């Protein structure tokens, strides 16, 4: 019997997952073309990319669902080629496809899950997870009687009930209502505060923007970029500031030098700020000093979605 579940230490910078030159080929298709990635303890990492990019294959290779062609995967410092099972006591996966065992109730499914991970039956833990996912009133319901959203909540509960140190959420909120999405986000933040590492894939970039510490962008089996979310948005993102004047302006008191664009009717000026330059605030100050009256200032910061589209179109982010 597996007697020693890996210790749950405090958040540290020791890698939880290290993937080196991971390749997966299906006959003629290369799903992963030499992916290397390191995930530290206690972070929330969002893996983004279009359909068929290799996100689920990468997660599957780590979780034992996909047989890799070559490369190395280390979980909690353990090479899976040498010890494929030991690190998995501390891993949880919410798969993309909803599945359920129709023979058992919600709480029975969680008890079974605890047993698979060599944990004793823990009713308090089962109640805690059910409450966190608003499933407590469904504890004795047959899984086949649950609605689609409830089934997805159960999937999440199953992945978390054994207190894994590393959780994979593969499209956890696909097709679910806003309420569950918000509940899940709150719970993911709570997990991180407890030192759990979370790796998620999502089509909702708002989700990654909301939760992730770092993002990885993958396309055609290649990891194009891995970067801190804030620095990525600062580096690649842009802020468009539209300054509308009271009346058409004549000569501007500043040299535009390509820093801003005046509209044809000379009633507005658009400043595109990248990496903090040019500073829209400084331009506004100069306009004010030049006696030009501004009636409206409208700001739109680019979001992760814009950055993702730009990176996918350009084929890389320049700083992987």
């Amino acid at each position, binding site marked *: 019997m597996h007697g020693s579940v890996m210790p749950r230490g405090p958040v540290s910078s020791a890698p939880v997952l290290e993937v080196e030159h991971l390749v997966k080929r299906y006959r003629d298709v290369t799903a992963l073309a030499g992916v290397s990635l390191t995930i530290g303890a206690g972070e929330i990492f969002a893996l983004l990319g279009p359909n068929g990019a290799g996100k689920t294959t990468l997660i599957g290779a780590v979780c034992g669902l996909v047989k890799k062609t070559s490369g190395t995967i280390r979980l909690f410092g353990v090479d899976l080629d040498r010890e494929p*099972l030991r690190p998995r006591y501390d891993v949880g996966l919410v798969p993309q496809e909803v*599945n359920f065992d129709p023979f*058992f109730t919600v709480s029975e499914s969680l008890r*079974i899950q605890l*047993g698979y991970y060599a944990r004793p039956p823990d009713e308090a833990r089962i109640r805690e997870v059910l409450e966190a996912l608003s499933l407590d009133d469904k504890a004795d319901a047959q899984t086949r009687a649950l609605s689609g959203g409830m089934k997805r909540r159960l999937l999440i509960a199953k992945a978390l009930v054994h207190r894994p140190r590393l959780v994979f959420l593969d499209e956890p909120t696909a097709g679910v209502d806003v309420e569950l999405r918000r509940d899940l986000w709150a719970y993911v933040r709570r997990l991180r505060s407890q030192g759990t590492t979370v790796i998620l894939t999502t089509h909702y970039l708002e989700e990654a923007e909301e939760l992730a510490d770092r993002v990885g962008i993958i396309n055609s089996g290649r990891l194009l970029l891995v970067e801190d979310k804030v620095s990525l948005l600062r580096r690649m993102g842009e802020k468009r500031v539209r300054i509308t004047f009271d009346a058409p302006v004549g000569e501007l008191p500043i040299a535009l030098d390509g820093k801003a664009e005046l509209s044809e009717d000379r009633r507005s000026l658009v400043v595109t700020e990248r990496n903090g330059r040019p500073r829209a605030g400084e331009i506004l100050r100069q306009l004010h000093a030049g006696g030009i009256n501004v009636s409206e200032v409208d700001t739109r910061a680019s979001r992760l979605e814009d950055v993702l589209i730009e990176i996918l179109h350009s084929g890389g982010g320049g700083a992987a």
Partner: protein
Amino acid sequence: MNATGLQTLFVKEVRRFLRVPGQTVLSPLISTTLYFVVFGVSLGGRMEEATGQAYLPFIVPGLVFLGLANNAFLNTSSSLFIMKIQGTIVDLLVAPLGPGELLFGFVGGGMVRGLAVGLLTWAVALVFAGFQLAHPLVTFGFLLGTAYVFSVLGLVAAVWAEKFEQINFFPTFVMLPLTFLGGVFYSISRLPEPWRTISHFNPMVYMVEGLRYGMLGTSALPPAVGGLILLMLALASTALTFTLLARGYKLKQ
């Protein structure tokens, strides 16, 4: 070894078939009872005239074998195959369960169902044919061995099958003909040549005759040969299934 994981899978497998007892236990029991009524009660008299021996007790070991082998096979094959189709196999593949835990967890569940149906069939037979147990150890050895081998074979079928048609292939096209031609309802010693010789290549014959020796004390074939065949089948099927599970054949992408 993940003993708690293995125990959990085993208990889950047993509870799974107990959740639908009408389908998993009662239904096969009714089929076997009908065999007793049709072959035993209505045709038995004529068979006794021809063979000179009591026919109802003669078919008991074969019918016990039939219920036991079919249900041991069906439990593992349907359980794993449904998990593949429904996607719940992911729970097992992600969990720290090695090929040994998967093999013995599923097979344990299959054996319990096979033995439950086999022993209930035997209990029903008491009504029609009375109780006979000439060699208890031989009988229980064959019951356990048969339950084990067919549970493992059910697992092989489930690993291999990708469609419902394929999972029905083994019971319909392999097990049913081999069982009915395996001396359940007749003694192969009464078969004309070349059928008698051909029957010797059917492993089911040895299992049925081994059980017959254990229960009735007589058989057309030496029980030691049956025991050896059962042992070899158990070893070969275990090695094959363990390898398939370890490689994730048709389970992992």
